[in-house]
């Protein structure tokens, strides 16, 4: 069976692996709450991962990498905004296009810049996010159970993990306690109400899409400069889609999103930790463990875990009508 140290390792990597999902999930939350479906989280994450790694590799600064990652992701967001808000195109198709665009561009540019088969050079030192030891981690580690949980699970992550955790209450606050949040939620439910109240639907939706890009940028940067030491082709590996499933599972609410992403993070960690699993004498193959998050996503979408109502105006471009 599992001992405490294995469990702690598992929880530690759960948190680490849940972070990109969490950023992407919150990104999707802002976008979809404003009525813009975003199947392109995956692509934005991938683009951000590449540009974060590339800029970090070239400048040696992870912070410049972060800026580059966010900028690329926001640029793709604006493209999605142009397609789905300004030109009232199909949001699903736009998202799919953005995913391919990112998948292709990252390799084409990576190959042109670094000639490493689509990879970026391995990042070291200041070009990566370093682990932060939370205050008193050493002192408290002696306390049974809680001590190691604090010192080894919560402490010792890169800054983006903590930013991700803080983004949850921040999202909640913005959404439910500010004017902007009220308007954002309204535009995803009934843009007509927002428009007739004298607020620009277009500006509001663009803001949401930009926030979405920003958060996807953080997700991608964490992938390439926190979780790994550089960019690898297709490194987002479907996380953007899993984040969408987590979002549906979370019923478009920030705190639930945290729970859903931790669950998927745990699955990912389990798959990594146990390459193959012996269950009652039968060996569960590695491939099954790797496919587990995808299978669970389908199960969740099948609604075996409760029914969710998406924002009412989601996916439909706003056309003024009398």
């Amino acid at each position: 069976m599992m001992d405490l140290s294995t469990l702690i390792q598992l929880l530690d990597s759960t948190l680490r692996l849940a972070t990109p999902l969490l950023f992407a999930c919150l990104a999707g939350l802002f976008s979809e709450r404003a009525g813009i479906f975003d199947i392109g989280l995956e692509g934005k994450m991938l683009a951000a991962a590449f540009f974060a790694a590339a800029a970090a590799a070239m400048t040696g600064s992870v912070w410049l990498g972060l800026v580059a990652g966010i900028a690329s992701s926001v640029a793709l967001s604006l493209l999605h905004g142009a397609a789905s808000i300004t030109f009232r195109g199909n949001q699903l198709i736009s998202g799919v296009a953005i995913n391919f665009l990112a998948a292709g561009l990252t390799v084409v540019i990576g190959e042109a810049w670094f000639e490493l088969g689509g990879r970026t050079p391995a990042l070291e030192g200041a070009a990566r996010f370093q682990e932060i030891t939370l205050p008193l981690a050493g002192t408290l580690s002696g306390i049974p159970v809680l001590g190691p949980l604090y010192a080894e699970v919560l402490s010792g992550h890169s800054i983006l993990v903590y930013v991700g955790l803080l983004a949850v209450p921040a999202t909640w606050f913005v959404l439910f306690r500010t004017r902007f949040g009220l308007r954002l939620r309204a535009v995803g439910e009934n843009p007509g109400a927002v428009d007739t109240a004298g607020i620009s639907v277009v500006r509001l939706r663009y803001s949401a899409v930009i926030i979405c890009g920003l958060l996807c940028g953080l997700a991608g940067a964490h992938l390439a400069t926190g979780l790994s030491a550089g960019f690898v082709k297709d490194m987002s590996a479907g996380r953007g889609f899993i984040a969408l499933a987590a979002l549906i599972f979370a019923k478009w609410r920030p705190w639930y999103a945290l729970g859903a992403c931790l669950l998927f993070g745990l699955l990912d960690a389990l798959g990594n930790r146990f390459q193959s699993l012996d269950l009652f004498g039968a060996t569960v193959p590695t491939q099954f463990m790797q496919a587990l998050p995808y299978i669970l996503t389908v199960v969740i979408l099948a609604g075996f875990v409760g029914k969710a109502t998406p924002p009412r105006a989601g996916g439909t471009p706003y056309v003024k009508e009398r």
Partner: protein
Amino acid sequence: MTAIDTIAGRPGAAAPGKVPAIELRGISKAFGPVQANKDIAIRVERGTIHGIIGENGAGKSTLMSILYGFYKADAGEILIGGQRTEIPDSQAAIRAGIGMVFQHFKLVENFTVLENVVLGAEDGAMLRPSLAKARKLLVDLAREYELQVDPDAKIEDLGVGMQQRVEILKALYRQADILILDEPTGVLTPSEADHLFRILRGLRDEGKTIVLITHKLREIMDVTDNVSVMRRGEMVATVRTADTSPTDLAELMVGRKVLLRVDKTPAQPGAVVLDVQGLRVTDGKGVERLRGIDFQVRAGEILGIAGVAGNGQSELLEVLGGIREASGAVTLNGQPLDLTGPRADGRARRDAGIAHVPEDRHRLGLILDFTAWENTGFGYQDRAEYGTGALIDQQAMRRDAQGKMQRFDVRPADCWLHAKNFSGGNQQKIVLAREIECDPDLLLVGQPTRGVDIGAIEFIHQRLIEMRDAGKAILLVSVELDEIFALSDRIAVMFDGRIMGERLPEQTDETELGLMMAGMAEGRRT
């Protein structure tokens, strides 16, 4: 033509010298080749209720949308309180003191009343202070104008009458001086409508200006001070309401003499065709929409179902048309119909001899992006007359379409045109042609003349009467009492998923039906 001595642009009813609340000069607006507004001029006096009346498609809503900044006029100018005002968006309209209550409410359904009122008129970046302030103001407004609503109720839990109050409160919260209401009574019972009119008179007496857009002559006569008539995008007259009559207004609206009654002989009811017993429907949210409905329709008669929209009529049609599942017992010519399972679908209903002209032809009755010929076979695509086997005999379908379009005077009679390119009346004729010519035993008809011009209304009514005289059973659902009276041989009134009672048209009147529609049990007779 007694008092109607005015022509467009020179309203005789205006008191000279006073600055009007709204003045429009030479407003024109075209959508592609369609001229929705043509050189419109109108003066709305301050502190009056001003009606704007016209047929569907006369351009009323377009004009008001221009006033509220939804569309930009191609030409003309707007004066608010004597000041030339540009209204490029709703924000500008609100600033100019204009509030609008749309026909389809612009409310966020899962927000509270308070949140809806505050939306767009918040005081600062933080929500709480805004909400607290709005709560206080709302209480004051509610007291002042008989507009009580629970500020913490969710919109989706409120009835339409209440939702309309929220819309009015929204406008008042933004300190609107001018309130425009677009067809506000379409979803109200007569008594709710009376309450609304009381509120509007109260607002007028406080000095507010009210613009009431409607196609109902009675409302104009009841509540307005002045009335403007629109026809085909033009303003044809503005008169003092006291100086005119419904007949005059109707003539102005249509531009010719109108037959307000349909000629029909007494019905010759035959055997029972449709027998409905204990019909119940529960919707997806667990709300019971039909709570045990019993009635019969005989061959050769029209049973009219009156009621305010949303009281279960739509569900009734959907159950009988095979779109929705239900419990209870329904027989057609003595044969029981399945109310659940695979044989409870539209195909089985058609095979059994039920045809269905749905309430919402755009959503249900037509595929707007299909050609007319594809639409005239819609629902009957598996019939033998369109070929046997897997392939559709498209020639046959087109020939059939040509015939139907000719017999029902569909214009243009081009079966290759997409359904979306026909006018409302012609679209409805396509649906009617399809459903009447399949020779059903029972015809379900929902809102047959909604969004249809008067010329087509006469035609459609005539066809329904002919069908009755040919011995068919017809179940008519309409929210227009005039239509119910014009066509029905018997009238049943629905309220809250129940049938409140049945009446013969010659033995009842609008007052009694109105009471029944509002849920007052059994009116005054039995």
